[in-house]
């Protein structure tokens, strides 16, 4: 795809095409696929994402590990709606997808399974709030995909590679750019939406309790979704972010590579390593994992790539 946001925006300006069209054009060129084929695949992805949200909101029993399950439903039905129903809807939809994921249900990894709740929560709720057509939603997904591809090239989208900032941070940046673009933001504003998202998520570690994609992942997806909307709101209101977007992405990559391996999906640090986290792991029958990793590895070992991505 593109190796920088700058390259993508320049191509779009030079050719006089939208950011979504630029992504489409590049994808067609690289894969030899037809436009209709690509758009159909994106539509299919959206159907899976929609179904996952619906399924997740209906879950009323614990996940196999017992760590999550039923939270999306509880939030949707009984939240105080402090900022109105849409805000609560965003949170519950993000959690819904992750709860489906935890039960071996069907999801779209956007960009990863562990961050799969963010993009659908933001885009489906904003579609309702801003009255986007389904075709506009496909375009928004293309823009989101373009952002994710640049981040994957320049930094990382995997928790094992760069912590949670690389997973939910990337997902939030994708969602923020899609919203800013579809709501009429200039290229500059779309860039600011990405920068404003990532600046607030830099350094976020990946520390899954018991090594499962549940705690804190379900909650991080919810807060990342809200973060994306906050960034789009500020960018569309004309807030700028003085560090160019590609440089912000590079910082995220750099922080990721320098992040101790304990904080990169190994379940060796952070919340996973707290006494309570270890108790939960033992109760879920996953303490063996933590012991094995502790015995075999020393902190800071950079070659270790343990855990899901």
């Amino acid at each position: 795809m593109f190796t920088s946001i700058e390259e993508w925006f320049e191509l779009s300006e030079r050719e006089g095409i939208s950011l979504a069209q630029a992504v489409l054009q590049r994808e067609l060129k690289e894969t030899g696929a037809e436009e209709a084929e690509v758009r159909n695949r994106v539509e299919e992805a959206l159907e899976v994402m929609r179904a996952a949200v619906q399924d997740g909101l209906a879950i009323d029993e614990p996940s196999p590990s017992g760590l999550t399950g039923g939270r999306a439903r509880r939030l949707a039905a009984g939240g105080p709606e402090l900022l109105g129903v849409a805000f609560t809807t965003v949170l519950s939809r993000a959690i819904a997808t992750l709860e489906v994921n935890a039960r071996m249900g069907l999801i779209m990894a956007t960009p990863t399974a562990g961050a799969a709740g963010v993009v659908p929560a933001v885009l489906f709720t904003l579609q309702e709030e801003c009255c986007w057509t389904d075709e506009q939603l496909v375009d928004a997904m293309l823009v989101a995909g373009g952002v994710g591809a640049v981040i994957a090239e320049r930094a990382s989208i995997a928790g094992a590679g760069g912590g949670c900032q690389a997973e939910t941070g990337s997902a939030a940046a994708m969602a923020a750019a899609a919203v800013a673009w579809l709501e009429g933001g200039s290229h500059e504003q779309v860039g600011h939406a990405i920068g404003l998202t990532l600046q607030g998520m830099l350094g976020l570690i990946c520390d899954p309790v018991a090594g499962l994609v549940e705690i804190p992942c379900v909650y991080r997806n919810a807060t990342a979704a809200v973060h994306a909307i906050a960034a789009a709101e500020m960018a569309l209101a004309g807030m700028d972010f003085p560090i160019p977007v590609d440089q912000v992405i590079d910082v995220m990559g750099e922080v990721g590579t320098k992040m101790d391996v304990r904080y990169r999906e190994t379940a060796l640090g952070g919340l996973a390593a707290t006494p309570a986290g270890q108790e939960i792991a033992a109760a879920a029958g996953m303490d063996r994992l933590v012991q094995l990793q502790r015995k075999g590895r020393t902190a800071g070992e950079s070659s270790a790539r343990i855990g899901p991505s």
Partner: protein
Amino acid sequence: MTTGLFDILGPKMVGPSSSHTAGACRLGYVVQAIIGGTPDTARIGLHGSFAMTGEGHGTRKAIIGGLLGYRPDDVRLRDSFARADEAGLEYEFYETDLGEEAHPNSVVFEVTRDADRMTVHGCSIGGGRIRVQEIDGFPVDLKGTLPTIVVLADDVPGTVSKITGIIAERGLNLATVRVDRTGRGERALMTIETDGELPDDLFANLHDRSWVHWIRNVHRLNV
């Protein structure tokens, strides 16, 4: 390797982990394709993170589902153990240490089907992508992202051109061709990646040639 749109928007998969669930399933799927269908027996050695975090991520269920021919987005992965019993697939998992060099998410399969027996090494390299590194001691580099023909044949002159000729007759472009042999005049393993899917019966008339031990069509698995 450049990142494509659907590396980001996807894969469509059964959760919870692209490397531990989707990748594990794809490895099982490719193994069953190489041995020509769901095996009768499978001994599966899990290395590193696959052994340690596998249970919570459904890695074992995903591998068995793959051996049953399920794809990563097939919700039957969830109860693949019961379906394996129904299908008569006998399986056994064990923890193994494939050494420091091995990828943390590595697996070794020993499978049998009818009279065939095969050992396959592979790993799940992230985002649902996989790599098959060894088949029966032959080094290979199979990703499953392109339709692939895998052939075990005697190392006699003309084998490669015979097979690539059949593919060329179908007007299909070859992406990669790899041949490894145990020794001159002994046995050779070929992996041929093509740009398009080949019909399963394309090589039917090669099966009875004495120099072909087996030939298998491994369909592409979208990530």
